[in-house]
């Protein structure tokens, strides 16, 4: 299993498309930072517009913490889309090149093979997120400096720099759980569909529908709380004045359960299905 995982990781980092994904993440990050700089002042003016009659403001809100928060908002769609495309490719490319058959003709169990794929997908996702998080904090603080974070979530909330940093780190950690869920789902879709283009389309559709269902009222408290689309924005709760830690932990664990279910489904289908 360890050898399979090592081989899988070696293969991932030998592929050109892996580096395309890394570059795509960096480009996305740069675009967000540039647009944040261009639009940030306007957005802040909008926030504070109704207070300008009464107050004068002292301090800079267009700072590194706001920029990190803006990048964090790419967890809604952009980052999961890149991850789903790349991760699903780990398996669809093997179906396309017929290397799945070649590998499984060797004394390699199907369980270990697909298990290594899922583990590699998780490790790759974690690597990409770590890269995104570290570079985001680094560039944001280096270029824009430190300062209070202002967030609009049930009102205007201001967080002092140390508090903002702590909340952003936790939000990235919570959001990473959502990204891992999407990565696992995309690999399961690859198992089910096998063909690259079909998998990408369905993965993008899955992401779109999930995002739309996030705002949909199912008329049931259980569904509105624990149906998987409702669990993909848990990281937003880190920016409430009082952080609902219990709810965040519960929702994160339920999403982990969904991820495990998706992985089990993919593994079961892969094992049951003939190689050819």
């Amino acid at each position, binding site marked *: 299993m360890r050898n399979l995982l090592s081989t899988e990781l070696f293969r991932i980092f030998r592929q050109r498309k892996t580096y395309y994904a890394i570059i795509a993440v960096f480009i996305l990050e740069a675009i967000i930072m540039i*647009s944040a700089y261009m*639009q940030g002042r306007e*957005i802040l003016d*909008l*926030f504070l*517009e*109704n*207070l300008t*009659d*009464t*107050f*004068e*403001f*002292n*301090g*800079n*809100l267009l700072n590194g913490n706001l920029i990190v*928060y*803006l990048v964090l*908002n790419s967890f*809604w*769609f*952009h980052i999961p889309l890149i991850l789903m495309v790349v991760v699903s490719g780990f398996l669809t490319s093997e179906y396309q090149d017929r290397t799945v058959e070649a590998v499984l003709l060797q004394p390699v169990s199907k369980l270990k093979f697909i298990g290594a794929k899922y583990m590699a997908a998780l490790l790759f996702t974690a690597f990409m997120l770590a890269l995104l998080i570290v570079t985001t904090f680094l560039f944001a603080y280096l270029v824009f400096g430190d*300062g*209070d974070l*202002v967030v*609009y*979530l049930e*009102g*205007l*909330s*201001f*967080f*002092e*720099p140390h*508090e903002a940093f702590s909340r952003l780190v936790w939000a990235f950690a919570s959001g990473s759980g959502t990204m891992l869920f999407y990565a696992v789902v995309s690999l399961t879709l690859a198992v089910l569909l096998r063909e690259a283009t079909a998998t990408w389309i369905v993965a993008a559709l899955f992401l779109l529908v999930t995002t739309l269902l996030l705002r949909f009222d199912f008329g049931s408290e259980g569904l509105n709380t624990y149906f998987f689309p409702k669990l993909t924005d848990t990281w937003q709760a880190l920016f409430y*004045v009082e952080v609902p830690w219990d709810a965040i932990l519960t929702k994160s664990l339920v999403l982990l359960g969904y991820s495990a279910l998706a992985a089990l489904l993919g593994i079961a289908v892969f094992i049951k299905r003939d190689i050819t």
Partner: protein
Amino acid sequence: MRYFLLLIGTLGMAAAMQAQDIDPVLTQVKARLDSIAGFEVTVQMEVDIRYVNMPVKTAELSYQQGNSVRIRSEDFVMIPKRGLDFGLGELYKYPFMTLNLGEVEFQGRPCELVKVIPTTDASDYSIATLWIDSQRRRIAKSQISTKKNGTFDINYAYKAPKDVLPEGITVNFQVADIRIPLRFLGREAQVDKGQLKADPGQKGAIRLLFSEYRISR
């Protein structure tokens, strides 16, 4: 020469009339405040607006007579546009007349109720009402109706009876509500500003707590 003397005389009369128009109780307070050349003080600011969640902020405030106050803070702070007129400089900036409405009680203290009415359009307030503690020669409360920024109700709290500089100031005001899309900073960043302004009329306040005055006379 005759016209020049006439002009000087008219200006002198105007100055004398203005001097007569200012209530002596207010003049006493102003004189007392003018005895302070400047000061520095640590200020804690607590914003109380329904849709604003802001921790208590600390800043250093410095005042020099004739200048507006300066605030230094490492954090982002919101400074009320009214309420920090320690030397009554903003009130005295343009000519005005006063109208004493007699004695009223405010927070258990006898106060002179004085209306301050600008006599020029240049002033940025239309009327100010002052509750002046005549015995202690300091302002207990003021209400300033500005031309552009609404009305400010300002309450002053003092530590000791002899103090002229407040230990605390509460500024009450009206503020419009805001409505901004939840995901304002995501890909749907285009926001219609016109739709965001709601009905004005919501009340807000900021409480300022001063400590460690360093006064220069």
